[in-house]
């Protein structure tokens, strides 16, 4: 069936099978490969994207459920080639190791800061509860999110 939606600010219209998962639609049909499939069971958060500004796991959503909605992936965060403050902070604070969890972490963090611009460290840790880093680099990830919160409100 035909769906119309907005992906990273651009209106799109695509033919999709109803059973196509949003993450596969984004990766294969839109060519946006930032969102990764880690667990495929709503646990790891590697597939996190923003749906109307709220973080969701795109492995547990159908592309047809996104019809009429706005999706943002990590590719869409950097406006005009300028890194988003969260991306900038992950680079500065060494918030990634292998990088597999990073697009999901960055999107979850961007969603968290949109809802709570001044989180405490505990709120950052709880806010990223749905994202696993198998390199276990949580310490720097939390530091990066706190630093991004500071730079966004500055």
């Amino acid at each position, binding site marked *: 069936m035909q769906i119309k939606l907005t992906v990273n600010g651009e209106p799109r219209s695509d033919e999709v099978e109803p059973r196509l998962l949003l993450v596969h639609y984004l990766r294969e049909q839109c060519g946006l490969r930032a969102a990764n499939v880690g667990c495929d069971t709503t646990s790891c958060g590697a597939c996190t994207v923003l749906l109307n500004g*709220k973080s969701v796991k795109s492995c547990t959503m159908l592309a047809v459920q996104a019809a009429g909605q706005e999706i943002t992936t990590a590719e869409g965060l950097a406006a005009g080639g300028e890194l988003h403050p969260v991306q900038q902070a992950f680079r500065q604070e060494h918030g990634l190791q292998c990088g597999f969890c990073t697009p999901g972490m960055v999107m979850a963090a961007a969603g968290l800061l949109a809802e709570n611009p001044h989180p405490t460290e505990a709120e950052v840790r709880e806010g990223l509860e*749905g994202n696993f880093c198998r390199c276990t680099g949580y310490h720097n990830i939390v530091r990066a999110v706190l630093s991004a919160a500071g730079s966004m409100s500055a």
Partner: protein
Amino acid sequence: MIPAPFQYEAAESAGHALDLLARHGEDAKLLAGGHSLLPMMKLRLAVPSVVIDIGRVEELAGIRADGDDLVIGATTCHADVAASDLVRSQTPLLAYAAAQVGDPQIRHRGTIGGSLAHADPAADLPMALVALGGSMEISGPAGRRTVAADDFFAGFFETSLQPDELLTAVRVPRHPGPDWGYQKFVRRANDWAIVGVAAAGGRIALANMGPVPVRATAAEQALAGGASVADAAAMAAEGTDPAEDIHADRAYRQHLARVLTRRALEHQKG
């Protein structure tokens, strides 16, 4: 994994959803947030031939006060229940329960109606609704009916909802006071309760202590008869028949029910 093929219908209103259910019969499944149904479809534990999406039906979402009750639309997501000023001030137990579901991403998609219709005995909202003495508003071909949470859960993942019926809203009596407690015992982040206890006023509900969320009636009666919290909590597992799994055997679950009930009756949140 990708679900088996199905026909997709997006409902435009509650009435339209009911028409689609009537037309497609038992082969059809309603899709709200999809955070129970889609994982089951990926695993082929559910193979509906028609999926009726109610996720964008505006009249089914939202929270309002109605006299002594709050009325919460079925497709209101857990995050909106948890963040609602009305829910937080008038039934803080419900806001707390919604905030315990999974993780932020799951709470942005999963809905209160989906959680109740799914009826996982380990889930947060079924236990909360039983503790608060809430009820379900249901529409079907024969009209509307209201079912008390105590009567709604019929068995393991089973409710009194018929295949052609739609849960439209949840009704919860206001319980604004501080006399409530909530205990969810888990070993991992974003998991279901190994045992859960929600207590409000004189009511005590247990999660994962049987095929449905159950009331700890012996403990409730002891409390009503003037027993101490410790003595009442010691009776919390009476009459329960919890399942055994890798997390806990029957005796351990019953032990947890007693300990967590005491904490819940002391109005602890955890």
